[in-house]
């Protein structure tokens, strides 16, 4: 019964979303139109936007809770629960199993969209009502599209009769704390981009692209970007420790699908800053907002439609793929049409000087778009060729590495002068003194790191140098700023931390790529293998039992200079519900490096032997740390006080020296 109520709530939510999407837009159509509708009725429609948003979120939230209830109570009369859960599954995974499949993850998508819309409705008291109404209406229309999708092709509330005795269980790969948090975080980012999109469309509809619009969009976009960063980082971390072979980024289409909105989103938050501060780049900013959300949708399409087969693709129902494709075409087509129609009238911007912060930011946002296009080409080309029946091919990781690296080099390099230069008009020679410390310091740091690792090449030195260059420049700016009096806004710290995080990430990636040692070995009990300064000795194997699996666990002793420093316990698991074995790697994380051991198969032969992967992975913890620092920076920037005070008051306290950047 409850399940039917949940289903019914979704249908009601569809109606409410339609009201939310249509009526407020009609009411804002402007003077002289729809005069046959009484004025007070139309102004009522404006107010309807907020209440519809809350009601819709409540309805979707109710459906969401009902489905969770079905999971936690092992209601195997619901087909979706049968397919993705099992009574032996530990409760946190039963909870997370809701987004372990296609239907549930779409429900999560809409639920989060409701959350973002409600947050906009709640925190927008200081915005003009027509603006709020337009923004919420656009989000209502998006929600309407997705609810249609769920109800017509991907209903999670379908019953089976007779009820199943037991569920099929969640894919063992997904039974992991990573799964509990990775999809919600990533979706928060994807869906959050809809806010920036809705603001951009609303501004186009209003025919006014001004500083106020950019100011309103900025905190929302930064928060969405932050969640997206966190989601991508968590996904990478999950792949690293769960897939059992130590890779953390494969240039898999699924990963690319999340990287593209991130790149464009990064360009967007910087471009929004220019639009707010200087009133230029308006059209470019709007285009980026449209692109970021469209790429989020494309990501959803690629990952969920079954076009790509991976742990993320759940079903290949052509109806679903076509629906999302049509939806994507509608969103992109209509927003670009609106853009083409309105942008020339509303986006007159001033000319900017060649040497100014604006120009550097523009160059970087173009570089990020170029990188996005390169990734898009490599991701979509095989799909297009396949769809045309012209053969099967794939684009290898070397392509992405070859292209992405060289684009990132100038981008990271000009982050430093870009954040030092003045707005409007600047002189390179003014900032030269500030470049001495990071430039020379980076030489010392990169040389030192290479010396410590005992190996150097041009690529490694360049990677470390760039990371240190950005990091040291950031430290220098922070120290200088602290010495000066005055309140320092969250956006200053946010920008510095985000840049610092990127610097640490760049150094981490450089380090892993250059110094990692991977050895696949066969070992009997008592055998040793030497990697870098470490000796790995296989002490023995034992059988262990988990709640819903059995495993073989190896005990591997790690020695350095003859001393045991660690006992590592990699496992090979056999889940009862699944025929495939699962590799659980053992990872020992230090400040500088990870040691990584995963257990392969028993090898045939007279004496029992096992195959093992034994990896030495320096700088891996730096990558995770870099992402975390970046995320922290994002939150700090979004929470800056000036976004929460009235625009007039805020511009008065807008500070100070042009040398202090607003992230």
């Amino acid at each position, binding site marked *: 019964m409850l399940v039917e109520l949940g289903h019914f709530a979704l249908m009601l939510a569809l109606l409410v979303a339609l009201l939310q999407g249509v009526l407020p837009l009609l009411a804002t159509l402007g003077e002289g139109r729809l005069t046959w509708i009484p004025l007070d009725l139309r102004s009522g429609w404006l107010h309807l936007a907020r209440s519809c948003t809350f009601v819709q979120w409540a309805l979707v939230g109710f459906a969401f809770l009902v489905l969770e209830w079905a999971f936690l109570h092992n209601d195997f009369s619901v087909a979706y629960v049968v397919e993705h859960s099992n009574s032996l599954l530990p409760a946190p995974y039963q909870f997370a199993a809701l987004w372990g499949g296609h239907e549930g993850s779409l429900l999560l998508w809409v639920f989060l969209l409701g959350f973002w819309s409600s947050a906009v409705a709640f925190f927008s008291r200081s915005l003009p009502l027509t603006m709020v109404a337009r923004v919420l209406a656009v989000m209502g229309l998006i929600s309407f599209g997705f609810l249609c999708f769920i109800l017509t092709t991907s209903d999670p509330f379908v019953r089976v009769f007779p009820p199943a005795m037991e569920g099929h269980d969640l894919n063992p790969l997904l039974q992991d704390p990573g799964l509990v948090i990775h999809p919600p975080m990533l979706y928060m980012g994807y869906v959050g981009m809809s806010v920036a999109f809705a603001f951009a469309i609303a501004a186009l509809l209003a025919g006014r692209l001004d500083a106020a619009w950019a100011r309103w969009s900025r905190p929302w976009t930064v928060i969405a970007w932050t969640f997206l960063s966190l989601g991508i980082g968590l996904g990478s971390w999950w792949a690293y420790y769960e897939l059992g072979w130590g890779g953390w980024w494969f240039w898999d289409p699924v990963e690319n699908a999340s990287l593209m909105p991130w790149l464009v989103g990064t360009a967007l938050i910087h471009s929004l800053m220019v639009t707010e501060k200087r009133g230029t780049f308006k059209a470019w900013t709007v285009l980026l907002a449209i692109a970021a959300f469209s790429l989020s949708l494309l990501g959803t399409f690629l990952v969920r439609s079954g076009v790509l087969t991976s742990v993320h693709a759940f079903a290949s129902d052509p109806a679903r793929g076509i629906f999302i494709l049509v939806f994507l075409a509608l969103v992109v087509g209509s927003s670009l049409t609106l853009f083409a129609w309105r942008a020339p009238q509303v986006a007159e911007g001033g000319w900017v000087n060649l040497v100014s912060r604006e120009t550097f930011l523009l160059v970087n946002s173009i570089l990020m778009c170029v990188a996005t296009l390169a990734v898009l080409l490599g991701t979509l080309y095989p799909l297009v060729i396949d769809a045309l029946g012209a053969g099967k091919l794939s684009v290898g990781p070397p392509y992405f590495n*070859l292209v992405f690296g060289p684009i990132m080099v100038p981008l990271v390099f000009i982050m430093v002068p870009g954040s030092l230069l003045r707005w409007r008009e600047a002189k390179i020679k003014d900032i030269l003194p500030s470049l001495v410390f990071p430039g020379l310091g980076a030489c010392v740091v990169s040389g030192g790191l290479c010396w410590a690792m005992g190996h150097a090449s041009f690529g490694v030195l360049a990677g470390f140098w760039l990371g240190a260059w950005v990091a040291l420049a950031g430290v220098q700016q922070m120290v200088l700023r602290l010495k000066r009096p005055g309140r320092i806004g969250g956006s200053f710290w946010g920008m510095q931390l985000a840049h610092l995080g990127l610097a640490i990430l760049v150094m981490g990636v450089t380090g892993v790529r250059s110094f990692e040692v991977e050895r696949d070995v066969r070992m009997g009990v008592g055998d040793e293998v030497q990697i870098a300064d470490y000796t790995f000795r296989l002490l023995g194997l034992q059988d262990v039992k988990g709640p819903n699996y059995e495993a073989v666990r190896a005990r591997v002793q790690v020695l350095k200079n003859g001393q045991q420093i660690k006992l590592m316990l990699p496992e090979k698991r056999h889940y009862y519900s699944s025929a495939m074995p699962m590799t659980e790697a053992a990872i020992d994380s230090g400040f500088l490096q990870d040691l990584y051991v995963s257990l*392969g198969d028993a090898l045939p032969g007279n004496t029992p032997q096992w195959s093992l992967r034994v990896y030495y992975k320096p700088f891996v913890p730096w990558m995770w740390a870099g992402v975390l620092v970046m995320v922290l920076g994002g939150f700090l920037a979004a929470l800056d006080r000036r976004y929460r005070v009235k625009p007039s008051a805020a511009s008065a306290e807008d500070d100070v020296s042009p040398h202090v950047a607003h992230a």
Partner: protein
Amino acid sequence: MTKRQKKFMLIAVGLALLACVTALVLNAFQSNLVFFFTPTQVFAGEAPKARAFRIGGMVKTGTLVQVGMTHAFVVTDNEREVSVSFTGLLPDLFKEGRGVVAQGELDASGHFVASQVLAKHDENYMPPEAQHAMDAAALRRASQTLKP
């Protein structure tokens, strides 16, 4: 410089940069396309020599031999076969009688030396390339038996 000259210079620099990047991207793209061939196509000599490509099909039952860390097995589309060797740890999902996709190069004797055996995430999952190879071969057989 006048404003106009500046503008012109900026556009020129921008275009030059864009051209460089495009060249870089397309060049890398060209040389990193990995094409897919079925065992039948490999037998017919359609696959490139001295360039990496992918093959897919079924791991023929009873052909997996392991010496040290090197695995040798036969990939078939039920029509033609290719012998494959791979050094390293096979993914969890690798099994005789299951679909497989491997990336590598042909050596002089027509033996496929795999650098990578692709791991996928689901036991019921058939790599689309492998499925394609099986389907193509089945289709050819069907059309041959239909011929008068």
